[in-house]
């Protein structure tokens, strides 16, 4: 299996230089020829609209407007393109002169962005992106009119990342809307966007966003090179890119972070990270992604720091429980019963009396059933999903215990695990695997097995990097200053520096502000007293 994967990877590496985009011809001066050529490119698509028109009233010239139905704003085309073309052209313009197109662009057409293009391929591409093409008979050039406009989803709160306080807007599927939302958060000229088209067939717009001077130049360059190496025919979501550019594609742990929230992206950019927007999806990648980021929620910064700190601790605890509790239960229940207090042991013993399976089988089985119920709840329509959960919880949980197939403690442990799992949603995937692996190890070697698994996980995590930054930092390599946003959530005024390994090119983020304010107050007080 691994040989196969390896070969695949190597081939992918070699194939990168392959198919160069097809060479297109230039446009011909003959309108009909051009129309035929474009139609041939697109096949007989019914959504390609060709509107032939006679320019007027000043000159008598034939032209054609081409656009894709649904990709353009019909009102703009009618009012600002067709109407002026038919009615606003002054007398005496020589329609065959070189200047005529410029004249149209500058004086007639009321469209924001107009480009001239000579090459057929570019024209077709613009057409597919929602531009309206104006072709004139006798001109070997086309005008590309930016009339993009299509149905968009309104800005909603993202379902996957709920918060209680703070901004509730989330990204949409529209790239421009998204970048604009980010601009609204960061009104700073150093916020730079770099756009590229990726995906041979989808030609998806991908934007790298970073703060010039804050983000490390090498990091931005690394993101650029990795993105440039992506050679794939389609990009439908941010994850398509993430899997390509991630440092450790085989690792369970995400080395590229995802978010749908503009405030999160803004905060990460301000720490010196780089964001990658992908057109057509509300999900934005940010890199480098560290392990501890998975435990940070935007709400941490919207609530007072003491509250945020304890909640964060509970999140660590929840992740530990989600990963470890079935394994610990199996280890204690099947190997190390001496660690259970005597009365508890007797109670558990009474509850598991007569169950036919070993504990590890019980736990794995119930865990699997839980995952299935969860998946069913997500995939089904919402009301049905709830029914499924209730049926799953009541019928299966209750019946299995009553029938004496599984002990009640197992159900309790699986339930605790299930709830804890959702508290750190970013690590859902690794969680499932780690839980299963640890449980199996515990079933074979008890606590020693768990320890071996934990050692392996630790070694693996320590070997990971995300865009050059050690994945476990700031825990290891240890960086005491950065624990202010890991062990606790320090007060905002105390987070004076950016994470050292990411934002080292401009570490200081604010003056040591709060102490100054305190000093001032003290001075005022002294003044009052004096």
């Amino acid at each position, binding site marked *: 299996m691994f040989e196969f994967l390896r070969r695949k990877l190597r081939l992918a590496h070699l194939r990168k230089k392959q198919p160069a985009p097809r060479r297109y011809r230039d446009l011909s001066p003959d309108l009909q020829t051009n129309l035929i050529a474009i139609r041939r490119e697109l096949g007989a698509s019914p959504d390609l609209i060709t509107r032939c028109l006679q320019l007027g009233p000043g000159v008598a010239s034939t032209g054609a407007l081409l656009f894709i139905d649904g990709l353009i704003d019909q009102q703009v085309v009618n009012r600002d393109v067709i109407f002026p073309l038919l009615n606003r052209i002054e007398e005496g313009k020589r329609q065959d002169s070189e200047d005529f197109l410029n004249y149209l662009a500058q004086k007639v057409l009321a469209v924001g962005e107009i480009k001239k293009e000579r090459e057929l391929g570019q024209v077709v591409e613009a057409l597919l992106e929602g531009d309206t093409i104006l072709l004139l008979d006798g001109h070997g050039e086309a005008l590309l009119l930016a009339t993009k406009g299509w149905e968009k989803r309104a800005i909603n709160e993202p379902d996957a990342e709920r918060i209680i306080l703070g901004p509730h807007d989330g990204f949409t599927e529209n790239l421009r809307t998204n970048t604009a939302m980010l601009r609204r958060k960061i009104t700073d000229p150093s916020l730079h966007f770099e756009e590229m088209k990726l995906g041979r067939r989808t030609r998806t717009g991908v934007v790298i966003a970073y703060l010039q001077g804050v983000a490390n130049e090498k990091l931005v360059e690394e993101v650029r090179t990795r993105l440039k190496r992506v050679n794939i025919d389609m990009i439908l979501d941010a994850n398509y890119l993430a899997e390509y550019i991630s440092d450790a594609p085989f*690792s369970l742990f995400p080395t590229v972070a995802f978010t749908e929230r503009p405030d999160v992206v803004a905060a990460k950019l301000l720490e010196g990270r780089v964001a990658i927007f992908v057109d057509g999806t509300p999900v934005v990648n940010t890199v480098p992604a560290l392990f501890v980021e998975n435990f940070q929620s935007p709400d941490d910064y919207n609530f007072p720091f003491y509250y945020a700190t304890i909640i964060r601790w509970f999140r660590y605890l929840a992740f530990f429980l989600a990963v470890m509790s079935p394994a610990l239960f199996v280890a204690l229940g*099947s190997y190390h019963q001496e660690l259970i207090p005597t009365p508890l042991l007797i109670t558990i013993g009474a509850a598991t009396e007569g169950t036919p399976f070993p504990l590890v089988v019980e736990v794995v089985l119930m865990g699997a059933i839980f995952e299935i119920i969860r998946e069913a709840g997500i995939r089904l329509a919402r009301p049905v999903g709830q029914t499924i959960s209730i049926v799953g919880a009541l019928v299966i949980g209750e019946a299995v215990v009553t029938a004496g197939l599984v002990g009640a403690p197992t159900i309790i442990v699986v339930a605790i695990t299930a709830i804890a799992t959702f508290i750190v949603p970013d690590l859902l995937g690794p969680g499932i695997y780690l839980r299963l692996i640890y449980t199996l190890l515990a079933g*074979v070697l008890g606590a020693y097995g768990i320890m071996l698994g934990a050692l392996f996980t630790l070694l693996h995590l320590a*070997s990971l990097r995300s865009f050059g930054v050690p994945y476990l930092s700031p825990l290891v390599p240890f960086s005491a200053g950065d624990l202010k946003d890991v062990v606790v959530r320090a007060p905002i005024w105390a987070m004076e520096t950016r994470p050292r390994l990411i934002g080292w090119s401009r570490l200081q983020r604010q003056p040591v502000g709060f102490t100054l304010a305190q000093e001032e107050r003290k001075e005022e007080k002294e003044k009052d007293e004096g």
Partner: protein
Amino acid sequence: MKGEPRRNGHANRHLKIGQGLLFFFLLLLFLVLAGGCWDRRELENLAVVLGIGVHLPAQGEGYEVSFQIVRAAQIQGPTGETGGGGGTIKPVWILRTSGPTVFEAVRNATLQSSRRLFLAHNQAVIISTEVAQKGIMPALDFFLRDHESRSIQWLLLTPADPVEVLDAAAGLERVSALAINDLIEDYRSTSKIRPVNIGNYMETAMQKTSANTLPIIRVKETAGKRELLMDGTGVVKDDRLVGALNAKETRGLLWVLGEVKGGVNTVDLPDGAKATLEIFTAATKVKVEAIEEKVRVGIEVKVQSSLGAQTTTDDLSTPGQIKKLAALQGQVIEDEIRAALRKAKEYKADIFGFGEYLFKHDFPAWQRLVKEWERHFAGAEVEIKVEVQVENLGLVTRPAFPKETGEK
């Protein structure tokens, strides 16, 4: 691994992680294929032993070991329902085996029990006096050596067959071994027994001059039921039982060891009535000196107590009476200590650890005296100073009857 990820080595990085995965799968595969689970013991296949008795067989060599095994299904759960069928079955199962060593006897239990005996939760090891007279360590060795058994299981002595203790009614508990545990843990409300676990026993046994003590448990018939009773302390010298202390002497022992945590003293009042005082806090300071060949022990006890009950009609709440009460209690405490000392000297057993004190604080003297410690201990001069302060009267001052004393 290269320290810095090579910029163009993306594919290589894939390989590295791939290898990691490979290792892990190998590991899992190995474990699962190897059949695994050698030491696994499922809860439902365990016979949880809560009490063990060690006795000598009527004839022949070796040991007779009895076990108290809990029937988990018969223990009432918190919901009130009993698992299994009905409450007629006793919640414990008594099993008796024998073998040349305790270990073999324990293993022989598997011949009779459908489930594996699990000793890690054993609460108490009860040895009969016969075993104690023959030597305790040979019987105890297994419990110290075995990885399952714990060092904090209580060690008790019983004059009869230990199986009687294990089989006795457990009072409010379902399992008598748990009752034993609670009886011992409650020693601080009487301070008339001295709890010893096998770890303590081993530790004291290793001290050259000290003698061990063990609490005695016996079975007492009450209303047709056989109930447990803690009764005094056995004295073990050189690993053999040599005698016993009664409750009063045990208290004396606890005073010297500084292990009195509570309990009451009853004093005789001049008019023949009695008053009982509760001990709140007690602190003991022991000082052992060896001058030449003479051992001198200074014992200083400080007690804070409270008046708990009186049978006299006098008003004991006046400062003068309180002082008197304190002096009387001091006398009682000193009596207790003297009684214990007398017994210990009689047995020539240094149950107080005076020799150990010398070892720790005056090593050269200890080296001098250790050879003939028994003699030195028996000849030790003990000076006792008891300081009692009655701090509290409870909720009333004087008794309600007689109505008016007319004093004042």
